[in-house]
């Protein structure tokens, strides 16, 4: 208990900063920087003042947040799958890796936001274009980490497999995938925050719904608190996604940490 208190003590700056922000913005009456209480009130009114039956979500929330989150998870899942499959294939074959390496380096150097106009030409406005943008933005760290993980499987395990004539599918699932898992998870962790960035930018650029679009609408209607509410919501979303991911990672990789004593 005292440990919790001792740790909580170090959070003193958060409330102080909030109060300072409130006081400063109220005194300065800055148009573009509304006081935090106003932002939170707007956030609540806009998205979370719905009926209990709908988990307090308003109709607007269902209209704005759910499509955004759906695209975020769909894009992330697609990219994660593609990245792991391609990455492991490239990691296990030296020739394939050498063939693809320059292309991979080029591909990941293209700023994903630069491809938004391309995807707009290809898919027109709407969900496929946004999912494509998220997939492209997210796939590289997963692919490169999976490639790295696939390349560095302990040779002893592979030779044991050979001795016991373990088939290729079993070898992939039981040996290679677990061996590469810590690296893959490192890539996936990076990709979570990237997915959020790509979700927002794709909605700012070409969308008719979603959190990003809502923020742009708020901006054009000079509804500054609503715009800030979007920023706060996305920040909270970023924290939540990260925490959730770390929780899942800790659970799935607990064997790894108990096998070696470092925290990977």
């Amino acid at each position: 208990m005292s440990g919790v208190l001792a740790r909580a003590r170090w959070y003193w700056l958060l409330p102080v900063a909030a109060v300072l922000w409130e006081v400063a913005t109220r005194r300065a009456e800055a148009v573009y920087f509304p006081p935090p209480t106003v932002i939170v009130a707007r956030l609540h009114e806009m998205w979370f003042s719905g009926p209990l039956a709908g988990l307090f979500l308003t109709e607007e929330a269902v209209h704005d947040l759910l499509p955004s989150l759906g695209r975020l998870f769909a894009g992330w899942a697609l990219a994660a799958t593609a990245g792991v499959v391609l990455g492991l294939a490239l990691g296990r074959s030296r020739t394939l890796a050498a063939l693809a390496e320059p292309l991979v380096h080029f591909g990941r150097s293209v700023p994903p936001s630069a491809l938004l106009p391309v995807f707009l030409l290809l898919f027109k406005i709407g969900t496929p274009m946004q999912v494509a943008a998220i997939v492209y933005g997210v796939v590289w760290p997963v692919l490169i980490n999976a490639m790295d993980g696939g390349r560095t499987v302990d040779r002893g395990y592979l030779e044991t497999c050979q001795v016991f004539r373990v088939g290729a599918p079993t070898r992939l699932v039981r040996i290679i995938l677990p061996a590469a898992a810590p690296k893959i998870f490192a890539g996936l962790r990076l990709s979570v925050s990237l997915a959020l960035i790509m979700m927002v930018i794709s909605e700012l650029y070409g969308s008719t719904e979603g959190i990003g679009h809502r923020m742009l609408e708020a901006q054009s209607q000079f509804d500054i608190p609503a715009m800030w509410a979007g920023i706060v919501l996305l920040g909270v979303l970023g924290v939540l996604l990260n925490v959730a991911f770390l929780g899942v990672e800790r659970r799935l990789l607990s064997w790894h940490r108990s096998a070696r004593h470092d925290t990977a």
Partner: protein
Amino acid sequence: MTSPALRRGALGAAGVVGFVALLEAAGRLGIIDRDVLPYVSTVLATAAELAADGGFHRHVLATLSACAAGLLIAFAVAVPAGLLLGTVPVVERSVRPLVEFLRPIPSVSLIPLAMFVFVDSADAKTSLIVYTCCWPLLINTLYGLADVDPLAKDTLRGFGFGEPSVALRVSLPSAAPFIATGVRIAVGVTLIVAVSVEIVAPGGGGIGAYLVEAGSANRADRVLAAVVWSGLLGLAASLLFAAGERRLFRWHTARTGEAA
């Protein structure tokens, strides 16, 4: 050059040529609709034309100068801040929660705000680059300072040096490789942020503005050619900084920090 390296280079080149040939074949055979995507050869020809196009040069320059300015300002802000946080533990422990709170805010979500606050969209772009680059620089500086050999610090203290000069003579040099890693990560992010701002607010020019313009004129060849250039620029920047880092810090094989 050793022969395995030569082999890898040859295979890599073959991979690129093969990929381009495959795409070209897919276009010519009608697998990729020509009305949607132009032939690769057309795109590459347009890319070559763009290399000699003064208008495109100006856009590229607008993007790169915003990136460079943003990176420099972020460096000037984040490294001293990191030095302060890293050498005064009370400040570090107090500010840490605030940092952890602000860092997850996706920088692109600040674009609508930046468009309001800065009348000139070039300023909005630079300031967002500064905001984004500050985090990896700050985190890596802190990371490096936590890794300083305590014995070296104590030795200097033993000889009567004050805390500021310990920080400057021991902590900063031994944290430098980590800061360099932070710079490399930040470089990768600058281009993404710059282009993101440019496509949402194309008023200030830049590669993103060019992409939007070409896209609305339905010139897919120009869009793709500009994408090719943006990829080459990003690749060149990351190779340049990685090479510089290797050269400067050959004595130190820094663990690669977390990418932002």
